[in-house]
């Protein structure tokens, strides 16, 4: 329990990596690192598919990255409210993140390749998420 607080809408309550949300609430965006083979995994996983180890530790991410692609949705699936902008970014650690772009930046022209920062964001109803901001 605890993971259901993550994101605009939740489809998962229980996971071995639910401490991710606790870290997020403390303002930290964490990935996991496989202690056996050193792979950095983000979004975090409890298990390493490279070496099949579950000996995993939390590791902080810089959150700094580059925009790979984006779209602004003007139609929304049931339960969501358009418009919103989705983006894929590559972070410094070589991992990628899929999330929304912060509302303030949505109106500006987004450019593939521009620098972005992944930041935590509190939503209503005690929900929490992360989003990308222009830097």
């Amino acid at each position: 329990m605890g993971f259901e607080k993550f994101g605009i809408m939740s489809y998962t309550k229980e996971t071995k990596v639910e401490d991710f949300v606790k870290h997020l609430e403390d303002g930290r965006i964490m990935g996991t690192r496989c202690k056996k083979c050193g792979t950095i995994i983000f979004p975090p996983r409890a298990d390493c598919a490279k070496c099949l180890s579950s000996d995993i530790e939390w590791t902080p991410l810089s959150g700094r990255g580059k925009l790979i692609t984006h779209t602004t949705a003007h139609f929304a699936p049931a339960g969501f409210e358009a418009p919103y902008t989705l983006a894929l970014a590559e972070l410094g650690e070589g991992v990628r993140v899929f999330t929304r772009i912060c509302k303030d930046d949505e109106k500006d022209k987004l450019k593939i390749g521009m620098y972005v920062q992944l930041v935590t964001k509190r939503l209503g109803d005690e929900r929490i998420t992360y989003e990308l901001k222009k830097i």
Partner: protein
Amino acid sequence: MHSKVAVVGVGQTTFTRSCGISIRELCFEAFREAIDDARNLSTEDIDGSIICSAPEYDKQRSPAGLITEYLGLNPKPTFLAEAICASSSVGARIAWSFIRSGLHKIVAVIGFQKMSELTSAESQERMLRGGDIMWESPFGSMMPAYYAMFARAHMNEYGTTEEQLAKIKVKSGMYSMMNPKAMYQKETTVEKIMNSKIVASPLKVFDCCANADGASCIILASEEVAEKISDTPVWITGLGLASAPLSLASRKTVSSLSCAVEARKQAYKMAGLKARDVDVAEVHDCFTIAEIMAYEDLGFCKRGEGGKLIDNEETYIGGKIPVNVDGGLLSKGHPVGATGGSQIRTIVQQLRGEAGKTQVADAETGLVHNIGGIGLYGSIMIFRR
């Protein structure tokens, strides 16, 4: 000796926005047409069936049970095959291996979807859960948005334009008018497409396939029986099936579908041919950008030149490689579980020379490219007459 495998019967319902009948009745229509399409074939001759559908559109659980009872296919074995939009291609692959192994001689692959019971918003809510439900669905990651992100990356990387995307739909609209089974039979223009409402930038309504109802059925048979039940068996000579990460964040590229590239390599190798040997192709144009990526992933043109291929009308009949001359998913409709079977039907008719106004002259080799979800499953099949 392993038996060769042929398609001996094809059928499909007319694809519609709302069929007004139940899923069992939809499947019956497609099945009967496929049985009638073969010669002297009756229900009792079918050794087994594979029912193909994406879950979550209807209330019936385990629809293979329902449908086989209604079609009179008991007590022969049956089960559901699911690979979202690639379900019935995957069903055809399973049927191929059943026949090839000698386990069965004649297998029916029946695909269906009735999407009209849900609104577009409800339907996208189901499809969104075809993405990673922990890390991507929570943000509202629907299908048009994922393909819009592919489009944006493709435009940035190769200079592909919104006009080029629109031209894909113009071609699709034109050919759909010659296909009596197509859902939309209307011509459209680049201007009209460019001015339609934005769904997920840069994709507009006409860049997206619409939700549809429909069923398809293809009947596969071993070499020893194929000649007896068909005057024009069409042989499956190449098969490729591959997967890619479900989450966009785990993909290395977002301007190509790696599952299609991998499946293409397998299929071309097995059939012993190259892209230039294909005479007519059906590709998974769920969105206009998907057809452009398919041109490149299949090797019909160099990477990044998909836009040029449509500019030069090379994928029209008379061009280098005619693609989706039945209207494609964009106009014919995309009742997801039925789509692969419908694509196979189109190619079989082409190779038999039965495609009427859209016949590609002397077509000998055909290809079907069918993708599941945002490129998680990629199936390529090669057919020869």
